[in-house]
């Protein structure tokens, strides 16, 4: 795979909610859910986004999927500028990018049978003859480890793991180039999570899929992603390839995040010795004018509160948005 074969490009993506006046007065506050996100995903690789709740991971995913309004910026899949598509051209392009959701209970229409659910995108986009679609559904069921006879069951008759397999089968039905996975294993038990992660890895190899993989679980992200971006309050604060991010995290937030994950190999003493982040993330409504992490950052300085740091590329390929990213922050 050459480095230059970029499947997905996101340029300065912004998604703001609210802030519009309704016709009868009331102006609501603007939520800066995603605020200037840039990244590239090489074809056939997995790009991970981690971050705490409310950091804008799902909103980024939905914007790329064209499921929320894009306030600003550009999303490009190969040569197609997805963010510029409208109406029928957008509908036609949808076969090329699909999504798997977090909650296997609310992401499948409870009134449709499993087979119809997996077939729905094919039906809607008129792909193949009805017989071909049926055959395709059977094949997809086998591919994700379900039995084709289970097509006639309703979603509630499946276990959580099986439902996530259904979600995957449905997303793969149109043979997409890009699969956006928004916390696909967060609602699953550890044992089932391992099954689904392995399945996703296998499918990627077999079908050459490109994944955008969102999770708040660093262990999972480390396991499945080639490149990892860390988000905080609508912005990417650090991006690096898998090995370098976890061996040499540079942003104070990344470090804190890594430090907060309890390890099976740890013990009570390890936990006590960790640096702790205090407080909760500030709200995405009233953003500080300097670094967004400054209110919780253990090493913040005066300059951090005055202007926002830019995402800059370092010699080791790390991109970090922090004025002090070159300093050793462990003291």
């Amino acid at each position: 795979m050459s480095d230059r074969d970029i499947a997905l490009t996101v340029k300065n993506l912004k998604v703001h909610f609210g802030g519009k006046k309704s016709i009868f007065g009331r102006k609501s506050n603007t939520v800066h859910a995603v605020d200037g996100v840039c990244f590239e995903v090489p074809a056939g690789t997995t790009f991970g986004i981690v971050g705490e709740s409310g950091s804008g991971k799902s909103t980024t995913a939905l914007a790329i999927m064209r499921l929320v309004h894009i306030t600003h910026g550009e999303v490009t899949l190969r040569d197609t500028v997805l963010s510029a598509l409208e109406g029928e051209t957008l509908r036609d392009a949808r076969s090329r990018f699909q999504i798997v959701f977090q909650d296997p209970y609310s992401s499948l229409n409870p009134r449709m049978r499993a087979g119809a659910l997996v077939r729905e995108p094919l039906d809607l986009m008129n792909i193949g003859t009805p017989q071909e679609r049926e055959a395709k559904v059977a094949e997809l069921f086998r591919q994700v480890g379900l039995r084709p006879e289970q097509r006639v069951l309703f979603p509630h008759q499946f276990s959580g793991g099986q439902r996530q397999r259904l979600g995957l089968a449905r997303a793969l039905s149109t043979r997409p180039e890009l699969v956006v996975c928004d916390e696909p294993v967060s609602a699953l038990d550890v044992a089932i999570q391992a099954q689904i992660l392995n399945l996703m890895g296998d499918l990627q190899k077999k079908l050459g899929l490109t994944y955008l993989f969102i999770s708040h679980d660093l262990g999972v992200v480390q396991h499945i992603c080639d490149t990892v971006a860390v988000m905080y309050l609508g912005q990417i604060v650090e991006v690096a390839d898998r090995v370098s991010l976890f061996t040499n995290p540079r942003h104070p937030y990344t470090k804190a995040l890594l430090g907060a994950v309890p390890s099976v190999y740890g013990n009570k003493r390890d936990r006590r010795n960790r640096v702790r982040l205090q407080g909760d993330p500030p709200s995405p409504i009233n953003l500080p004018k300097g670094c967004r992490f400054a209110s919780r950052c253990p090493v913040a300085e005066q300059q951090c509160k005055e202007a926002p740091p830019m995402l800059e590329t370092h010699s080791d390929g790390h991109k970090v948005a922090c004025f002090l990213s070159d300093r050793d922050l462990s003291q």
Partner: protein
Amino acid sequence: MSDINTQTKDIIDIQATSSLREMTTMFFRNYAAVAGLILLITILLFVFVGPLVHTTDPFEMVWAPFTMPMQEGFILGTDYLGRDILSAMMAGGQVSLAIGLAAALVSIIIGVSVGAFAGYYGGLVEELLMRFTEFFQVLPTLLFSMVIVALFGASLLTVTLAIGVVSWTAVARVTRSEFLRIREMEYVAAARSGSARDLYLIFKVILPNALPPIVVQANLMVGSAILFEAALSFLGLSDPNVMSWGQVIGSNRPYILDAGFAVAIPGFAIFLTVLAISLVGDGLNDALNPKLRQR
């Protein structure tokens, strides 16, 4: 062990594959629904087949006024003009049921469309549609329907339309709130990313999931339409040439202390009808829900 078990469970489920058959089975397993259905069929037979057997003209004065039920051969007695109440119940039932169902249908069609579009599109569309709904809601309904009837004349059609037009707002509100809730569900986003069009999302994805409270509302609608027609005819605004349960109540109401039965009988009939319809509606609701169906 567990594997074998889940497999056998699947196979059992797979055999019962036809939705229609499953639904029928589910419906008939629900005793309350079956009782409701039997009651409803009985009412329909009484109203539509009854007149073939019992041929007395409901408008004809046949005996002394206020003959008690079961006396002088009048099973349900006679009214204040000495007309046979049994005949009136049969003839009036045809009209009341027809008006009830038709008016409910009208209000559901209007209410569901308004509520669905408001809930689905949100924003300006919603704001306009809901103001429109509020406008109808604050109108004094009886007065408004009187105006319609007065303007277009008192025929069954105008009465039905008038009732439908004034009573759809409740349906619209229920539909809208269900749509607001369901449109945020991930399966709707999933369908959209499967390139579904708006109308598909509204009618194929969201509406089926929004049905239960709408069906309940529809049940209430039938009952209230029958009562509404009663109120209109009490005011002399319904078609005077036809008999209805409401008319029987309305015309005998002044004499309620002397001959309570003449009011109680049609009242009871309305109650039974509403009960039967809501039992059947509940049963249908459950039968349409795959989650309940396969337990």
